């Protein structure tokens, strides 16, 4: 185990009550507010940009807000499986909504960049994707999320079968890493925030890797 067995049991004993209550609450909460928030937040940002509430450079502010929230949601989505395994916290039902909203924000982040920031200068956009490693990393993240979003429906899971579906959805780790690297690579000097996301993502991947090494790759449950 990531946390030693006795330690984990001790934590569970202390936190069991709380975990049970959170799990019960999670069962009764619907997922649609996540989608609604995913629609309201960009609309609010756009409204703030138009009315001057985002400051002197609304384009960058929108771009950053969408990018950062996409990354935060991806980190959150990656945390759900370890939270269930280590803490018995079951938030699985929210994972699809979190992932889809993250993908939606990544798309809007890209569109803000291409349309408002780059002003649709396609030559420069193409050159940046090819030549600038941080832009390349961002595009890799976006591309990695597309098949995941496309196979996010119940019918897609049925069609693919759980094993193939889980294997495909391991791509989320590529997307997460690409997104975190994209952020770390574009900043000047050494701000803390991008390294926190990168650290969390690496930590979750380490937990996942330990799990797979213990139980065997093929048998690995929920990707």
């Amino acid at each position, binding site marked *: 185990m990531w946390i030693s067995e006795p330690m984990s049991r001790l934590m569970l004993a202390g936190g069991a009550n709380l975990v049970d209550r959170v799990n019960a609450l999670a069962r009764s909460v619907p997922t649609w507010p996540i989608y609604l928030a995913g629609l309201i937040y960009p609309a609010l940002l756009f409204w703030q*940009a*138009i009315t001057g509430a985002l*400051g*002197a*450079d*609304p*384009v*960058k502010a929108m771009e950053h807000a969408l990018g950062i929230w996409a990354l935060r949601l991806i980190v959150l989505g990656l945390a759900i499986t370890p939270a269930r395994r280590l803490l018995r916290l079951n938030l699985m039902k929210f994972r699809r909504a979190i992932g889809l909203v993250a993908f939606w924000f990544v798309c809007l982040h890209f569109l803000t960049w291409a349309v*408002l*920031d*780059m*002003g*649709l*200068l396609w030559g*420069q956009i193409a*050159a*940046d994707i090819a030549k*600038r*490693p*941080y832009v390349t990393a961002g595009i890799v993240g976006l591309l990695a999320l597309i098949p995941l979003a496309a196979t996010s429906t119940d019918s897609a899971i049925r069609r693919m079968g759980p094993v193939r579906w889980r294997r495909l959805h391991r791509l989320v780790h590529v997307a997460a890493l690409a997104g975190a690297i994209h952020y770390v*690579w*574009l900043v*000047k*000097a*050494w*701000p803390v925030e991008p390294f926190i996301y990168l650290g969390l993502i690496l930590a979750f991947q380490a937990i996942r890797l330990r799990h797979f090494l213990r139980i065997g790759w093929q048998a690995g449950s929920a990707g």
Partner: protein
Amino acid sequence: AARLQARPSRYSTDEAPNSFEDITSYNNFYEFGLDKSDPAANAHRLTVNPWSVRIDGLVERPGTYDLSDLTRGVALEERIYRFRCVEAWAMVVPWIGFELGALLNRVGVKPGARFVAFETLVRPDEMPGQRRPVLDWPYREGLRLDEAMHPLTILATGLYGEELPKQNGAPIRLVVPWKYGFKSIKSIVRISLTDRMPKTTWNMQNPREYGFYANVNPNVDHPRWSQATERRIGAGLFAGRQKTQMFNGYGEYVAGLYAGQDLRVDF
């Protein structure tokens, strides 16, 4: 802020300046934090009176000069300059100031001097960004002597007809309009004349990305982004980008300074 009298200058652009709000709320001044809104939020703590500037090195009259000594009897000019950040955004700023060359002539430059080095104040209790080693404090910048003596190079003490707001580098800062903004060092406490190229902060931090000259140049990209175009702050959500001009449009005045230099090497 106190009003400043300034006469117009032939070097001013006729482009419309950015709003006072834009210029004073969107700043890179890492001494007050990494976000562009941090300087406006935190700079009020800075004490700018009294203020003195140490002038030393290869000068005839070295010393620690009170700010009022430096500005006494100096005719201030308004210089409406284009301002181009290395991050590929741009503004137009109506600075008020005087030519650095006039000050250097007053203190007397000794014959061996070839460069001018500048330092920003270090005062972590008033500059919260300095409590973390994001940069190697003090912030340092430098110019070649001919760049420093060029009439476009000014020490600014105001903008928009008023004393310089603290987030813009009060009480006295450098403005070199044909170079990326980070060369225009803020809140200066030391000016040294030297015979060798001084160390400069961003060059120390990442020499591959930030050169000593840092002339605005659309043909030499930053390793992580293109410098061919820029976004004009305040132009609106759908304004897109404008082409970056060689030497930020001041080539007719300054291109001669670099005759014979390869600007890809001396970037």
